[in-house]
């Protein structure tokens, strides 16, 4: 167990007390399950991350973006060479992919798209809360969200007492918070007071000063927190730079570098989650895919269908789950993009249902306005 500031002082005795007097309860149903979402901002190219094997049309349209040394998944799909950890996990039935999927947004704006991938809504800027926040609230899971960013991402909003981790350059004495905490009273101070309360309860390891631009450090700490049975159950990471309009590259280059960053985070999570990795789901989230055809600057433009990259022990098996629409001109969205045949929100709704122990139908009503989202838990996850 990780120590918080409070129980650091009383930890020893209370642990003894608990183990001595309470009957041992079975962990089979109560074991904490973690859901980790990694936002890939800018439009992740599903056809670069999980390329389709031997499609002549793709080769023709992407002459300068050809991938070499891809990691083979099955007879139809391969993996970008930088996504090594996903391949390693695939061999262990702990990585899977959903392909030709996207949120139901067909516009071309990052701003609208990123807003919708976080709110899960149909109209940009209409909703002020995120689907993950609403899912936690509907499941009565409060104070268990952890964001690895300075502001609270929209995705996690809508549920109180979330925590985040992005330490300042110098140490801040939490003693200061004890001095001001009681000064906050009344209805209009409720939000700040509860946030100060969250800080007071933070474990010692989250009080360090560090270089917050070191993503590896942040990921290590997040993994440590998620491994703690009393720690967060949900974590949100942010990665940007996927908007590669020029010099996108193939096995190396701009898009490859971002995929490598993603690979790094997942690798660190896998290593540091230890046994908890088997009770974890990691899913990526992006606003749209990219056009099939490369442009004059050897990049790609904003597209539609993309892929969701998944890892974790709660996956049913290694698979590329897709209703592949094909890449012929007539199969493309608006004649230029990989189509989306699976509403990405169905995947997220099913993942929440597994990790929060809730009926997917119930979550769909509470979180996604009862939109037509099929239950994919049997197909994708361990139930």
């Amino acid at each position, binding site marked *: 167990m990780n120590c918080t500031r409070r129980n650091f002082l009383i930890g020893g005795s209370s642990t003894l007390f608990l183990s001595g007097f309470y009957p041992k309860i079975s962990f089979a149903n109560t074991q904490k399950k973690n859901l980790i979402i990694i936002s890939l901002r800018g439009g992740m190219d599903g056809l670069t991350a999980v390329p389709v094997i031997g499609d002549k049309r793709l080769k023709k349209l992407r002459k300068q973006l050809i991938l070499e040394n891809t990691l083979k998944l099955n007879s139809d799909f391969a993996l970008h060479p930088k996504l090594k950890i996903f391949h390693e996990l695939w061999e262990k039935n702990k990585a899977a992919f959903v392909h030709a999927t996207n949120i139901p947004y067909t516009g071309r704006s990052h*701003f609208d798209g*990123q*807003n919708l991938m976080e709110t899960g809504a149909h109209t940009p800027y209409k909703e*002020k809360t995120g689907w993950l926040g609403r899912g936690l609230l509907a499941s009565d899971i409060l104070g268990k969200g952890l*964001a690895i960013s*300075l*502001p*609270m991402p929209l995705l996690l*909003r809508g549920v109180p007492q*979330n*925590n*985040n*981790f*992005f*330490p*300042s*350059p*110098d140490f*801040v*004495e939490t*003693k*200061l*918070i004890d*001095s*001001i905490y009681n*000064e*906050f009273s009344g209805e*209009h*101070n409720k*939000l*700040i007071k509860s*946030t*100060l309360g*969250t*800080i007071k309860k*933070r474990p010692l390891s989250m009080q360090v000063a560090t270089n917050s631009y070191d993503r590896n450090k942040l990921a290590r700490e997040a993994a440590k927190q998620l491994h703690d049975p009393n720690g967060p159950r949900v974590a949100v990471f942010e990665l940007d730079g996927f908007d590669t309009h020029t010099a996108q590259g193939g096995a190396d280059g701009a898009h490859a570098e971002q995929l490598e960053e993603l690979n790094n985070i997942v690798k660190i999570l896998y290593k540091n989650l230890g046994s908890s990795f088997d009770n974890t789901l990691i899913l990526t989230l992006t606003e749209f895919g990219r056009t099939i055809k490369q442009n004059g600057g050897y990049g790609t433009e904003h597209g539609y269908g993309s892929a969701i990259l998944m890892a974790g022990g709660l996956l049913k098996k290694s698979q590329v789950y897709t209703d592949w629409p094909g890449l012929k001109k007539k199969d493309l969205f608006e004649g230029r993009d990989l189509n989306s045949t699976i509403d990405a929100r169905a995947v997220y709704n099913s993942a929440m249902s597994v990790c929060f122990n809730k009926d997917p139908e119930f979550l769909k009503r509470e979180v996604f306005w009862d939109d037509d989202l099929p239950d994919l838990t049997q197909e994708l996850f361990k139930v």
Partner: protein
Amino acid sequence: MSPSAGYTQEDVIQLAYIMTGWSHKWSNKKLETGDVWFDQDRHQTGEKQVLGVIYKNDAKRELPKVIHDLATHPVCIKFVSTKLCRHFITDEPTEEMVRPVIDVWNKYDGNLIEIQKEVVRQAYKYKDTTYKFQVPEVWLMQLSKIFDLNIPLLPSRMNYDFKTKPSHSQRRLSWWLREIGHSPYRAKQPNGWSDFEVDWVSPELLLRRLWFSSNILPKMIKAKNYSHDFTLECLKKNFNDYDRMSLLIKNLNSDTKLKEESDMSRKYGIICNLPGVLKA
């Protein structure tokens, strides 16, 4: 002016035509930016129409005309006035708060100083019923004012000729704003930073303010040789609940050099993050 002005995609396209040809100069001496200029050869000729107003083919004179028309549009005036009230007074400003600002806008033909003055008047009028949790930038400017610190440098010192890199002191404000989560250049959405309170509340964002006020601020106060009494005087001048404030920091006035630094750090960490300062 917000979508409530009822513009269409065609209005956006027409406005884009008016803007064609405008560009900024790139220097060959690795300057970051240069003057704005108009290139007639890259301008879309012909008549344009924005929000029902026709702009005759008039080269570089089209843009100032359309800017004037948009800036004096009633929807724009109401939109910006509401935003100003939201920024300083409350998340949901009422008609009674916004109306006087609109009136002053019209009366003084958009004079920005008069408009801001009216916003301050309204903020003061509602000070006992609204408790706006100030965005980090406003909070920082208030600290600068309370403790007489000139955190934004004087215009004469900020002035540089774009031919040299800005100095450390010229760049520090931008760095501080970034570290407290409010970099002027890094808003992620095209509509800029949010004015809603909830967007500025997260454990790390509150900790960043504690970090600034207990690490950076004491150094600045020290550099100015301000005394403990000066701090108290500043609080007395600015806050009604001065007694409570001074009580909280009463014991933090050490004579020994060794303790002085941590006392200073705690003192400013506490003062700057009390409800009355965060929500002014």
